């Protein structure tokens, strides 16, 4: 893989939009990590307070996003929500990759009976609509952050397995894999050193895209009441909490909703840029003189 700095440079040069994506995602990650230390009203953020005289305050200098029905600062809760969304995004995608990559890699590279068996299992999961599967799992497992992550990643890994499988089956027949075999490299070494690194691009791009989708779906689960615990400042839950009073106190739902929108958009822009920067062929076409024939 090209060095990290050259990759970032390439990314930035490519377009302003990918830069925007990069900024949004960076902002999201930093907020997620620092949230407990930077929110103006930490108790509100954690949901420990009930200020009866501060209920339903519209946005002001004191409460930039207004307050909710318990008089809690929405801004603080949205910032803290970034932390939960970050945990969900990284947790869901990470766990799904942890299952999907080995399954796809082994199925694609080993092939034969083992490969078809692994792919049949994958296909069984793929037969369910992913959101329905996640809802069913979440309902069975019960509410909670950890259970939400499990439910989503179980409905998610087959997509990575499938994606990697397809890529590996084509990469393993590339001439450079033949070259590696000619060196007498073992199957494992070829799999990890040559096949895997050249097969990861589609999965990486999909994973970046899915970070956004994971946040969206976790919000969906919370909205349906099968997601994280009540009181947790998760964005989907925040939207739900404001739902009842949307006509009078629109700000309670609007700001967490906007946070979801912007973050998902950021991940999409970043995924687009990644697609181009990670694929050496596209890089080459853009850089090259081949165009001159």
């Amino acid at each position, binding site marked *: 893989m090209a060095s990290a700095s050259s990759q970032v440079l390439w990314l930035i040069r490519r377009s302003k939009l990918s830069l925007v994506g990069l900024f949004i995602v960076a902002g999201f990650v930093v907020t997620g990590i620092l949230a407990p230390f930077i929110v103006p009203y930490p108790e509100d953020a954690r949901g420990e307070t009930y200020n009866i005289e501060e209920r339903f305050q519209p946005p002001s200098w004191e409460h930039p996003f207004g307050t909710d029905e318990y008089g809690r600062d929405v801004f603080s809760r949205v910032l803290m929500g970034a932390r939960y969304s970050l945990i969900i995004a990284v947790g869901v995608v990470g766990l799904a990759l942890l299952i999907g990559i080995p399954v796809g890699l082994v199925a694609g590279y080993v092939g034969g009976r083992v490969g078809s068996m692994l792919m049949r299992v994958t296909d069984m999961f793929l037969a369910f609509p992913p959101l329905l599967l996640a809802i069913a799992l979440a309902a069975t497992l019960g509410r909670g952050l950890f259970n939400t992550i499990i439910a989503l990643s179980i409905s998610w890994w087959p997509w990575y397995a499938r994606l990697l499988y397809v890529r590996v089956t084509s990469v393993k027949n590339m001439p450079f894999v033949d070259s590696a075999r*000619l*060196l007498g*490299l073992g199957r494992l070494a070829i799999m990890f050193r040559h096949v895997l*690194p050249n097969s990861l691009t589609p999965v990486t791009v999909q994973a970046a895209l899915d970070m956004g989708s994971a946040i969206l779906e976790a919000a969906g689960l919370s909205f349906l009441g099968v997601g994280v615990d009540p009181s947790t400042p998760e964005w989907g839950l925040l939207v739900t909490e404001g739902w009842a009073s949307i006509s009078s106190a629109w700000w309670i739902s609007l700001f967490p909703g906007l946070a979801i929108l912007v973050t998902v958009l950021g991940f999409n822009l970043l995924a687009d840029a990644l697609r181009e920067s990670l694929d050496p062929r596209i890089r080459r076409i853009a850089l090259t003189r081949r165009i001159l024939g």
Partner: protein
Amino acid sequence: MSLLDVRGLVKYFPVRKGVFGRVVGYVKAVDGVSFSIGENEVFALVGESGSGKTTTARCILRLIEPTRGEILFMGRDVTKLKGRELKWYRRNVQAVFQNPFLSLNPRMKVKDLVAEPLKVYRDQAQDVERAVEEHLEMVGLPREVGERYPLELSGGQAQRVAIAKAIILRPRLVVLDEPTSALDVSVQAQILNLFLDLKKELKLSYLLITHDLSVVKYVSDWVAVMYLGRIVELARTEELFENPLHPYTLALLSSIPGTKKAKWKRIELAGEPPSALNPPKGCRLRPRCPLAFEKCHEEPQLVEYSKEHWVSCWLY
């Protein structure tokens, strides 16, 4: 003693059909091929697509298993090698392929690509970094290229990297599979010269797979012309060009542009090569051959027509 002996090599690929993968026939890619390559010799296998030349090379490289036949390298049967012996073989037999952009891992730096063979066989306590620099120099690349990725190089430079990688273990035999067909002519000449220099310097033998007879003329000691899985003519290079016999060889020579005033008989083949799934009975060239006669319905054998010149055709 010869370095490599191929005896009666056969490779059939099953053709499957239907849900249960029933075998409905075989593509007879290589159908009884024998030849040998001596020490520090260049042997060329010439033919068009579907002739079986690449399949033969892949069998020799043990990338696929032959259906039948023997491949002896320094007297040992390659098809039966395992474990350490196979490693010994791999070390001694390397390859350079047609398209370096596909045969070099695009995610590795040039210096890591060239060093990889040494790392696999880390039995000598040698300075890897210096060895890489030496070999880059040997193939005519500046040392800075080591820091680059294959896709940042020109076709000729990338092919030089592939060559450096192939020779760094000091193999005895290098299989060259259409090594210059993807390159510009001016670069092709550079690379062919490099092959000649390395052969002399490192006492290499080459098995050259190509469709281009004019390249063969420059680098090869022996030529075998293949058609539909069989060798139809085999001779010393000068002898073959001096005295080409088989109609297919003549057709190949005639199709080289700019040879209108050639001394041999010009032959044009009719139609297109038939599929190797269902090769013609008797002589396989018969349906396309303008010189075919009654006898050609029987299968000709490869016979020694003159000293060091074999041909498989009823005309001789």
